């Protein structure tokens, strides 16, 4: 019994000390709010604006049915390709749809190639044309996408990953946004397909839901979309060809988004909308190791693109003031600088302050993050989600999310350091070394 008493005493002590520090900690809240509030407001108003626009769009009948080419970038996905092709064939879009499965390194990836061929021979549906384009020599993602772009005959090009399948109204929703001639590209929404596989996939499901359905939907209303996902994006083919298609190096999706944005100042009417209800379902990494590698790559590439490749073009002259400021605050500061600040700050506090202070600090940070995530989650659930019942099941996992988020921030730091010091983008697995070697150095 005495042990229990001791533990109780310790907890009570921590709590009393923590509340003391907690009051002190609350001083940071206004700072946090000052930084995060604009984002809150932008996203919340954006979501409301989207709801109105979406309701209006649905009422208006459309007769715009251009031919669409879906480029599937296949590598070693195997049987998953079939699900992807089937879900594209299944689209309720009334126009012609060309489905091009580009198999990179078809010599090594015989199985994937065979599955794609099997689909081409067996699946027959009116207005759906399946083609398989084997790239015998492996050349990386960018070459696969550009090969598909070269073969595409449609007016709209949708690039999709081979392990991503789609809701059958996806094309209907995407194409409607292209009816506006000022739209060169549309971002597609992604959901996690394997939500229940592990705790990691559940966390990622919340992350995708909040950042995609919430963040991107809201921001896109102000034309501030940060990235058109490489797993699912749509482009006007002529525009895409005009700006040279996808560029070599890693993170070709972010690179392309940045390059499109560089036309914003010169063509102020251009906008990149986000097709919130055009849903693609993708498999998220279900163990920590795979997730770690994925994030190391993503975050490292972010730094490479912002600070190395597109640094000279980072100017309001090209982006326009709105995009420039937004990218500065929430692209550079939040994603590149903040993780360092947080890490350094954490280490310094750990050295200087007593443990009670650190516990209180963590509690405060946790609370802030929890409320933030809870707020956005509720916003998405009530305002955006097309599968509210399914998404509601994630609610019980929300308290774990701030911890997940912290882990991701730490990984991000390592990734940034890795890129800064080791130029990790040059060792990406997205293209073979002989291609990466020849890419322009930044």
């Amino acid at each position: 019994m005495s042990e229990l008493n001791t533990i109780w005493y310790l907890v009570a002590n921590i709590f009393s000390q923590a509340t003391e520090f907690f009051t002190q900690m609350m001083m940071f809240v206004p700072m946090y709010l000052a930084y995060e509030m604009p984002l809150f407001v932008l996203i919340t108003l954006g979501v409301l604006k989207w709801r109105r626009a979406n309701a209006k769009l649905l009422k208006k009948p459309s007769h715009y049915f251009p031919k669409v080419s879906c480029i599937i970038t296949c590598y070693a996905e195997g049987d998953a390709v079939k699900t992807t092709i089937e879900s594209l064939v299944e689209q309720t879009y009334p126009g012609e749809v060309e489905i091009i499965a580009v198999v990179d390194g078809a010599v090594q990836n015989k199985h994937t190639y065979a599955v794609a061929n099997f689909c081409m021979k067996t699946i027959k549906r009116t207005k759906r044309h399946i083609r398989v384009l084997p790239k015998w020599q492996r050349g990386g993602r960018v070459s696969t996408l550009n090969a598909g772009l070269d073969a595409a005959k449609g007016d709209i090009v949708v690039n999709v990953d081979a392990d991503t399948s789609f809701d059958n109204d996806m094309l209907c929703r995407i194409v409607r946004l292209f009816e506006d001639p000022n739209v060169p590209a549309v971002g597609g929404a992604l959901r996690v397909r394997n939500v229940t596989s592990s705790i990691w996939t559940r966390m990622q499901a919340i992350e995708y839901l909040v950042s995609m359905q919430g963040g991107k939907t809201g921001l896109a209303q102000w034309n501030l979309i940060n990235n058109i996902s490489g797993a699912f994006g749509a482009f006007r083919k002529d525009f895409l060809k005009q700006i040279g298609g996808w560029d070599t190096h890693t993170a070709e999706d972010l690179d392309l988004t940045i390059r499109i944005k560089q036309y914003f100042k010169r063509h102020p009417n251009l906008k990149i909308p986000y097709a919130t209800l055009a849903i693609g379902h993708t498999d998220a990494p279900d163990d920590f190791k795979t997730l770690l590698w994925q994030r190391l790559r993503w975050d490292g590439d972010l730094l490479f693109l912002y600070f190395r490749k597109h640094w000279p073009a980072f100017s309001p002259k090209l982006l326009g003031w709105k995009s420039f400021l937004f990218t500065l605050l929430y692209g550079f500061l939040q994603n590149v600088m903040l993780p360092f600040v947080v890490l350094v700050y954490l280490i310094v506090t750990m050295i200087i302050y007593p443990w009670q202070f650190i516990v209180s600090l963590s509690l405060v940070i946790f609370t802030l993050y929890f409320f933030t995530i809870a707020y956005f989650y509720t916003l998405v659930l009530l305002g955006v989600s097309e599968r509210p019942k399914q998404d509601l099941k994630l609610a019980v996992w929300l308290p774990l999310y701030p911890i997940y988020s912290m882990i991701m921030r730490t990984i991000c730091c390592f990734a940034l350091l890795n890129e800064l010091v080791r130029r990790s983008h040059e060792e990406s697995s997205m293209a073979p070394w002989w291609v990466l070697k020849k890419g322009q150095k930044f």
Partner: protein
Amino acid sequence: MLEQSKSHLSFFSSSIFIAENDKALKSFGLTELLYFKNIDSFETEFSAKQHLGLIILDLPAQKQDETLAFLRQSETFWLSTIFVCQASSLSTHLANGIWSEQSKSLAEFSETRKKQLAVNSTLVETAVMKLLSYLWVFKGATLLPAKSPQMQSLYWYPLLQAWGIKPEDSINWLASMVRRNWLEVDSLVNRVRYCQSCHSGHLNYVDTCPSCQSIDIGLKASLHCFNCGHVAAEHEFKQQIGLGCPNCSKPLRHIGVDYDRPIENQQCNSCFNLFVDSDVVADCMDCGEKNDVNNLIVQSVNSYKLSANGRNLAKFGEKFNSFMFDQAEKINFTQFCWLLQWQNNLALRHKQEHSVVYITMENVEQFIQDKGEKVAFSLFDELEQRIAKSIRLTDICCVQEEHSLLLFLPLTPLAQLPKIYQKLNEIELLQSDKNIALSIKALPLPDKSMSDDVNMWLFEALEQARSIEF
């Protein structure tokens, strides 16, 4: 050098060049060739000339094809060596190639062959002999089919057409040539299907309802809602943008997750029959017949070359005989006579009974000229088939002279022969046409009067035997 140019000169001095202008003539350096502007001017001037070394054409494509067809049709030039300067659609079929440096030696070779040609003079004007001579004279020549989509037969043989064989008869005609071992297939060019009613190749393949043959069929897909298990036609699920279950109103977003396609059938819009595989009907565009695909006439279109037999025929003029069949044992006349004598002696000793049958056809040449080779060959074929059916493998056959056949039927008394007569009598053509006649004579063996000169005995015995005429 001088010698060479002399022979060159003599060969070309009898050659002609037909072209709209003589530019090519000069560029080839063949100035000694006689130059004509067109076929008419050439014809009036050239009919007098006896021998022609070579004809070179350099005409616009269509004009060239017409000229080639005219030359091959003509009784004077059907075996002339003809070269063209530029390929036209029929030049591969009717000319001997495109003029080049090597063409001269080829032409000279053909000249030599023409002199050696020993085809049977009585039948030299028929297409058979023309074809055999042509294929033998021009080294490596083949009979090539030409594609012609507007024709019912789809393919035709320009050379045969020039020699009077109609496109629709060509394939059967060639088949009988192959059966006679004069030609052999060089390569398979295509396989075509013809309407069973009018033999036209203009077919349209349509998928139809297997129950009422209506062509108005379409795909009918049904969806299965996972939420409530409702199964209904796809169109009932259609909503403004996506799909939704008409029964439980649940939106169906993702195949395999919310719904699947349990049934994908075809449906006839006339009789509403549901089926999986439609029937394919070949609709004839010419006579309107709706053919079952399995009943279409399938024919191979081949290119043909001369066989060893055909070569012998062209080169040595082997006797043309309408009886060519390999059913029975075939021996030559000397052996046949020896056999008769031997069997006669055996029969005398062992009291056996044999028969010798002599079948001959009269007026064959006249008949071919009157009725055409197609009819004649079909008659020969039928005759062969009927004789072949009547005789046994152990029977001995001997082709003695033109259009006649000697058969030795061991252990067959004369009394059994009327069966064979009956079969031959059934041939319609023999009954309907008075010009051609089949005569059969039969001799019984043993015959004690058979002398050592079997040939003489046979001749006399057949003279005396009563013939059964058809």
